[in-house]
């Protein structure tokens, strides 16, 4: 395996991790489930490409605009649907995700902006997107995002969100504005998804609405579950493992997704909390655990 190949997998893991991280906050901290985040990735991807190829904006600005657009649409959706409970929220996101893809399937743009030719042709999508997502850039964005998320979740706001997941009614009684925190989680997750979309578009080099089918949303959700809902390190582990696994298992080809499905069912039965079980992998805790191990041994010896 060449470094180029590994780099490809790592970049893919990076932008997937962005989506998974956002979803992990949404699901793990508020108990809301989305089956439409591929739609927000789609919005981010198209907006960012329109920004760079159409208006000639720099890559960073395009990513920011992509993220913010996805976030605004996510916030609008949240405003309408966050009042719905469990299943209905999940169905609404499913509908929006599919609707976004179908809208882009029917949009045709063929114009010249500032002397640049820009073609967006429905199901054929956009080709020749400049390749700007290098490994360094992707890693930097992910590190910043992970750090910001970790800080937020360790703050008062993070604890409030946790309270909502554990018992919404009790959290409300304790004076937590549950709607506001659900909205915050929704905005965060869609912002991340939008940025991820921009990164994806400028890595793969072309865009087609078919890249953002519902299966993709489900795959993101599976990664969240696999890693453990609401655990940042769990998300990182889950994403990198599940992104690398299909590459390692190229030989089994079509059977890959069969095992995916089976794995989800088994995880739900055996270990519904996922790999990390909502806990974080932390350096200090690791040392504590080591110390405990040694103490235990000494006691055993004495």
């Amino acid at each position, binding site marked *: 395996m060449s470094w180029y190949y590994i780099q490809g997998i790592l970049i893919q893991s990076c932008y997937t991790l962005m989506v998974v991280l956002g979803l992990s906050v949404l699901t793990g901290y508020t*108990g809301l*489930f989305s*089956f439409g985040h591929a739609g927000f990735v789609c919005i981010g991807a198209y907006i960012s490409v329109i920004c760079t190829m159409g208006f000639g904006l720099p890559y960073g600005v395009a990513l920011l605009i992509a993220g913010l657009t996805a976030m605004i649409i996510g916030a609008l959706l949240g405003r*309408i*649907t966050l009042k*719905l*409970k*469990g*299943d*209905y929220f*999940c*169905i*609404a996101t*499913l*509908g*929006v995700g*599919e*609707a976004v893809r*179908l*809208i882009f*399937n*029917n949009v045709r743009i063929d114009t010249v902006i500032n002397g640049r030719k820009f073609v967006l042709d429905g199901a054929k999508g956009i080709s020749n997107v400049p390749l700007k997502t290098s490994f360094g850039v992707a890693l930097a964005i992910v590190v910043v995002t992970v750090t910001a998320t970790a800080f937020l979740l360790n703050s008062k706001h993070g604890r409030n969100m946790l309270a909502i997941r554990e018992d*919404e*009614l009790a959290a*409300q009684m304790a004076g937590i504005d549950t709607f506001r925190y659900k909205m915050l989680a929704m905005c965060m997750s869609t912002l991340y998804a939008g940025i991820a979309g921009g990164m994806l578009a400028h890595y793969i080099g072309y865009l087609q609405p078919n890249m953002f089918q*519902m*299966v993709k949303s*489900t795959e993101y*959700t*599976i990664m969240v*579950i696999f890693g453990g809902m609401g655990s940042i390190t769990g998300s990182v582990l889950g994403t990198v493992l599940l992104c690398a696994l299909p590459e390692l298992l190229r030989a089994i*080809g*079509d*059977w*890959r*997704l*069969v095992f*995916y*499905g*089976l*794995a*989800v*069912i088994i995880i*739900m*039965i055996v270990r*519904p909390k996922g790999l990390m079980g909502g806990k974080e992998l932390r350096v200090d805790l690791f040392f504590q655990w080591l110390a405990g191990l040694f103490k235990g041994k000494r006691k055993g010896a004495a």
Partner: protein
Amino acid sequence: MGVEYYLQQLINGICLGGMYALMSVGYSLVYSIMNFSNFAHGGVIMVGAYVGFYALTSLGLPFGMAFIVCGFGSGLLAVIIERLVYNPLRRRHAPSLYFIISAMGASIFLENFVVATIGPTPRNYPTIFANSVVKIGNLAIGLDSLLMIVVSAVSLLILMFIIQKTKIGLAIRACSYNEKASTLMGINGDLIIFIIFLMGGVLAGFAGMLYGMRYIVKPTIGAVTNKSFVAAVFGGLGSLPGAIVGSLLLGVMEIFVASWKSNLRDLFVYALLIIVLIVRPSGLMGKVTEDKA
């Protein structure tokens, strides 16, 4: 375009709606008792279409027999899924979130299992009615459309009869109001869940076969089953008459939108879903439940 054109489209719409109804009652039945959207149902429908295909081609069964085999096969599959996937969760009283995720997992499993074993290439059913039509005045109704309408109507009527008039139906209705209380009254909850999965599965098999006859069999007919799920939400999740009315309305509307602009038909369905969820999440006939958080 005269009246005939619209009548013809209306018949096409009822055809499609009838097929949606066969699929959506499966979603609704499960939701009414277990309170989750059983996304594995789409996979059951797809497998049903394949069972019908092989019953007709490899086994060379006559059409009527193939239909029965098809219903039996998917009914069995639905029950097996319930036993293996949902039963362990039910024993643990897991939150409905876990059920949805497991259902998604099962649907991914079924779809890709078929892709891996049979292959992704679409297959055509052998011709059963060689384009024969029944003429009523100026209207021409294909025999296959007629069959679709008759099969859907008869099976839905039988289902409604079971639910409304028999003792088992009474038990199912009781469970959908309050499962705990009904089990305390001596209703066997496991048996009821077995029966609803069996009934949903059999109808899913019929729907799969009708779909395969009219269109094509392929592993990714999820787009269609998703639309039937939208129909169930439109009519009101958990309400059987709602699912049937919602399906018929959706089928007719979809056909009319398609005859106006064919590439907008899918978008229309999902737009309708979003509008329904915003305006009236309980759907046309769903009971408005007080949220207990």
